[in-house]
């Protein structure tokens, strides 16, 4: 055996050797050293023994695993970030948005300067502003139109369904 093998490996190297974490060269060197060194063989044996003792730390106190798991699921449900509203709620959101848009349009019209012109035709009710902007309530099949100062009322009949739509538009 060369002198190189006579040098004792460090304790950390023996600790890793006992756990099988040494690299191939270190392992080969330690194996060769252990053949002739009782002291290091004893140390490796103690590290093996230590590993088997540490296994006892796997023993856990009594835990209600099902209760613990249920608590996790309950908290995860509550704390999970809410996704975009489900599809079934989308029509309601759309309706609310439409109402808000109409309200905004009404507010816009009501704040326009005097001089707005209201007109009804077979295509719908038009509000022509002095600034040149035109706001149209599109509709078809006009049946009857009533015009008064600053307001217009138009009735539309849907030929297919028989539904009657009344558009009343006021300009102030």
């Amino acid at each position: 055996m060369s002198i190189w093998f006579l040098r004792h490996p460090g304790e950390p190297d023996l600790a890793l050797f006992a756990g099988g974490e040494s690299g191939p060269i270190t392992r080969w060197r330690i194996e060769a050293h252990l053949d002739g060194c009782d002291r290091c063989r004893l140390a490796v044996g103690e590290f093996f023994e230590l590993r088997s003792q540490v296994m006892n730390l796997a023993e856990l106190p009594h835990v209600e695993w099902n209760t613990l798991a249920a608590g996790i699921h309950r908290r995860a449900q509550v704390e999970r970030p809410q996704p975009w509203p489900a599809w079934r709620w989308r029509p309601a959101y759309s309706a609310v948005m439409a109402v808000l848009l109409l309200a905004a349009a009404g507010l816009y019209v009501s704040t326009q300067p005097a001089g707005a012109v209201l007109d009804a035709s077979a295509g719908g009710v038009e509000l022509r502003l002095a600034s040149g902007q035109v706001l149209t309530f599109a509709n078809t099949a006009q049946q009857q139109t009533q015009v008064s100062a600053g307001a217009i009322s138009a009735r539309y009949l849907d030929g297919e369904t028989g539904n009657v739509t009344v558009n009343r538009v006021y300009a102030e």
Partner: protein
Amino acid sequence: MELDKAPQPLELARDREQEFVSANLRRVFLLIYRVVGNQADAQDLTQDAFVKALTRRDQLKDPQKAAQWLGRIAWTTAIDFLRQRKKAALTDLGSIPEPSHLESPERLALRSEKQAYLADGLRLLSERERAALILRDVEGLPAAEVAAHIGCSTATVRSHIANARTKFRKYIKGRKP
């Protein structure tokens, strides 16, 4: 056990979550329990770790590595707790396993004594050495996986494991009559 990050039908997602929790619950609890050393805290922190993982699954880059990712969350949860509480105490006699009705009082006493003895030894280790030792020697994970759990290199993990075993060996030799 993987954890899908893509949106799934609600019931399927719930089933996958339950499988994920069941497959990893004991391991996560063991790691946290042995790091913080207290059963009540360990149960709370285990819940915290899983809830973090389940509510932040969009941050999971590789679903194949969900267990490692969860282990990392568990580890940081436990360490943050210890830092906040400035408490590094490990299992004390008051939180040693509760008695089972099937064991004799003598055997129970022996087991409790052994657990307390080992838990005392763990106190000598740093938090990282403790986690590395538990994951490697108790859970049997390879060093590379331990590294992924505690967020350091494999070489550093090997160093932690070697230090932990060396300290523990000295402790055991010192306690022998």
